[in-house]
């Protein structure tokens, strides 16, 4: 094999010696910053938490900045992928696996054992890592930190620091710079600062739920949970505004933007999950599996998650409408029927107007998932879900001894299985193993909805530049969504795939300028060709006609 595998502990290039002294110092500073967090985790009590927190985060950010400047600004502008398949960290080597394990453990502790991070329960003061973040939390929201505040802060720091790195890496590419700036902004403002500041408005007689405006249903699976809806309704005008905005986003704004620009407007420009994947996760994009089997699994998986998320949300809403309908202007059955009618019309419309674009398996899949969903709706309408009791120990090997009603059981299972395990533990913890978009590709129900629309009803496509492709494979290698871009490009065919998040990296790395992300008319967007441009015109006509 010619593939040189390097098992040194280097983060930079085949040999640790190749990183400069400046980079080593920067690395050391970053690690010291992380080490402060580790010390806090093990209950070292820092005298002045505000100072040490600032120091820690400052060192991490500063270290990353210095390191990246040295890595990219010392070289000419261009594609900087040298050695990604040599480095242990980015090619599933020892370092990659180690990081994967550390992240996975971190997520498990975060979701299921926050006390280990120092979360004070029953009104006790925080300790450990979480206490270290109290000063910042107090500064923003006036409250002490929770595990989610710690997580949110680290998440934002990661997007900012690695976003900066990414912008340097692609400093010749304005598309990459702008969209990275955009995810950095949306994360910092919408996901982090604004909700914390809004928490300040809460008082005894006025309270809004923690609300990240850009985090829509169904990615935000608890968007329409009763406690949230209640809080919004109780908060009167402001609350109603946010509640209605949430619905309008799902049914109007998102479809409109997806029609105009493809799902990239969200996945690569706004979304927080996407934001982390594109910045901190960028080094792992090549690890996504491009095989046909993975693609089949993906389609099966992601559509199932969507159905799961719909039936869960409908179960939750219809249950509280069932016993409390006056409060919500809607009865349970009216709600179930309108959902059923909506889905039926949607499917009928797609099957009729897009019949030429659907192959047999898509057709069968759509019908199957539709019948499944409707069956659930019918079931809901006949039973009072809150009266059906489920003993969780049967499903959790005895780990969970609680008894749930059907709706809250479904909701808890969704939150646990999809919300925590899939999007957190696997989605991010496994970056160094499965690539940076495993969740976006296999799990995100929001991506599924926008993806179906992108495939069927959007102006977005990746245009292939005539006959210029040399089948080198750089595009496929860089596609974090596991799309075999080359398979299309080498046939001269545009790429119109539901999973494409429009990150534009395939286009950036193509050495022959073959790929361009575009919004243009829907006609001729999907253009399978038999023979590529440049060939004899008669032959092209002859074959492309058939």
């Amino acid at each position: 094999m010619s593939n040189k595998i390097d098992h040194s502990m280097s983060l930079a290039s085949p040999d640790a010696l190749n990183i400069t002294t400046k980079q080593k110092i920067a690395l050391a500073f970053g690690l010291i910053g992380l080490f402060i967090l580790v010390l806090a985790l093990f209950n070292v009590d820092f005298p002045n938490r505000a100072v040490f927190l600032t120091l820690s985060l400052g060192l991490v950010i500063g270290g990353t900045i210095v390191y990246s400047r040295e890595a990219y600004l010392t070289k000419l502008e261009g594609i900087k992928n040298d050695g990604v398949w040599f480095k242990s960290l980015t090619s599933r080597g020892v370092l990659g696996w180690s990081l994967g394990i550390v992240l996975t453990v971190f997520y498990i502790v975060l979701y299921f054992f926050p006390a280990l991070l120092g979360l004070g329960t029953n009104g006790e003061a925080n300790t450990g890592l979480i206490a270290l973040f109290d000063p910042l939390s107090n500064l923003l929201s006036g409250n002490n930190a929770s595990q989610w505040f710690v997580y949110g802060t680290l998440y934002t720091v990661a997007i900012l620091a690695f976003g900066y790195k990414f912008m340097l890496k692609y400093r010749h590419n304005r598309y990459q710079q702008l969209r990275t700036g955009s995810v950095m902004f949306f994360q910092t403002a919408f996901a982090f600062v604004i909700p914390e500041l809004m928490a300040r408005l809460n008082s005894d007689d006025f309270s809004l739920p923690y609300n990240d405006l850009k985090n829509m249903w169904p990615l935000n699976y608890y968007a329409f949970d009763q406690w949230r809806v209640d809080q919004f309704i109780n908060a009167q005008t402001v609350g109603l505004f946010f509640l209605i905005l949430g619905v309008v986003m799902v049914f109007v704004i998102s479809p409109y933007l997806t029609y105009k620009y493809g799902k990239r407007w969200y996945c690569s420009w706004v979304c927080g999950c996407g934001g982390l994947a594109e910045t901190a996760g960028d080094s792992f994009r090549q690890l996504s599996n491009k095989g046909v089997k993975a693609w089949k699994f993906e389609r099966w998986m992601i559509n199932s998650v969507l159905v799961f998320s719909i039936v869960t949300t409908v179960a939750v809403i219809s249950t509280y409408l069932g016993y409390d309908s006056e409060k919500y202007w809607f009865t349970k059955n009216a709600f179930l029927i309108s959902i059923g009618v909506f889905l039926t019309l949607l499917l009928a419309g797609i099957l009729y107007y897009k019949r030429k674009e659907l192959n047999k398996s898509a057709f069968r899949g759509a019908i199957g998932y539709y019948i499944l969903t409707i069956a659930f709706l019918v079931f809901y309408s006949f039973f009072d879900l809150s009266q059906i009791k489920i003993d969780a120990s049967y499903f959790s090997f005895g780990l969970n001894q609680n008894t749930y009603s059907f709706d809250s059981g479904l909701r808890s299972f969704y939150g646990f299985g999809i919300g925590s395990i899939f999007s957190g533990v696997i989605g991010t913890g496994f970056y160094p193993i499965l690539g940076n978009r495993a969740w976006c590709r296999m799990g995100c129900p929001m991506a599924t909805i926008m993806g179906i629309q992108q495939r069927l009803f959007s102006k977005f496509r990746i245009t292939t530049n005539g006959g210029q492709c040399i089948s080198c494979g750089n595009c496929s290698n860089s596609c974090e969504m596991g799309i075999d871009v080359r398979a299309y490009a080498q046939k001269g065919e545009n790429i119109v795939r539901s999973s494409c998040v429009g990150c534009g990296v395939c286009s950036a790395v193509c050495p022959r300028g073959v790929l361009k992300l575009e919004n243009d008319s829907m006609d001729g967007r999907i253009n399978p060709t038999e023979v590529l441009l440049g060939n004899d015109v008669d032959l092209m006509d002859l074959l492309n006609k058939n």
Partner: protein
Amino acid sequence: MEHVVIIGNGISGVTVARHIRKNSDKKITIVSAETDYFFSRTALMYIYMGHMKFEHTQPYENSFWKKNRIELKKGFVETVETESKTLRFAGGDTLQYDKLVIATGSKPNKFGWPGQDLDGAQGLYSKQDLDSIERNAPDNKTCKRAVIVGGGLIGIELAEMLNSRSIPVTFLVREDSFWNGVLPKGESAMINRHIKNHHIDLRLSTNLKEIKSDENGKVKSIVITETGEEIECNVVGLTAGVAPNIDFIKTSNIETNRGVLVNRQLETNIPDVYAIGDCAEQRDGGIGQRRPIEAVWYTGRMMGEVLAQTICGNPLEYKPGHWFNSAKFLDIEYQTYGWVFADRGRPEYEEHFHWIHEDDTKCITVAYHKDTKQFLGINTFGIRMRHETFDRWLTEKRDVDYVIKNLPEANFDPEFYKHFEKDILASYNKQLQTV
């Protein structure tokens, strides 16, 4: 069932096989001595640079071949016996064919330099060449310096490869400016500067005299003809062009010159024997302004597409459309559509408009007919342009004014990139006024 045997699993051989399968049920066998499965030769550099692994350069999954009933045989064909329609392999076994396609590609040129076969002196063409460069130049401790001989597209790729591992490179180019047999002056000069910016020791107008050996038969140094200077090095890259890889055919009845001679239908002098891709040579000296041997990726593919029709009973001529090509010089992408000639070989009617950006990484050259003003072709560096648009303009025989004014339509750069069409137009108007 008719048995079509294809020698060579490169782009040409694989394309003809795929298209025969689409159109027929014939038995198809592809023979190659190089690798088990088709891979993209153009991506060899990215394996050494660590952008991809070897398996990523394979455009089809391994299961593809079985699914499409294309048999693969690994083996080196030593002789072709056209009377008995038999191939004889190096291992002694044989294979019968009904129709034979020769798609054996190229091999690196070696011009008889003393020491050219030493350990450490090599071309860059095959998977085996890649393995050997990985062995000879794994890092800058094993290989303290490399010398590249021959300033063409493969030479510059090899330079970029070695550069990625911080191996110092001396680049010997016979011409007085990089690739100026193909590129007009301004472009070639810009690439010279770009190469030097990458700290590559570019030596123009410089020839290799000999390669010297150490006591173990390994490369130790090279000597330059012009100055007699001796440069110590551990690897010598021989990238002075390629030639058809057809030595094994010379003993057969198949007519050859530099390549296997074929007519417009890609038939050789022997019935049922065809040749396509890098190894084929057009009998009547090239189609239009094309060279008789076209050693580029897409022409091999196009010949494969056409020949599949002929073999499946729909005889067609190879009639390529407008010329186009592309390459990348370190960080600068290059595309060309239509014909733009360098100083050498330029028809007397061909005039050029040249624009270069002040950052010295972007430029274009537009060629047009000096009397009719007809647009003949464009070279573009650092700005991506749309193949389809230029193909149409060439067919419509647009004039140069039209092309320059409508250049925005042809832009293919990613969204939000800075556009230069206004600059270009202004510069065009100015230049025309001064002449």
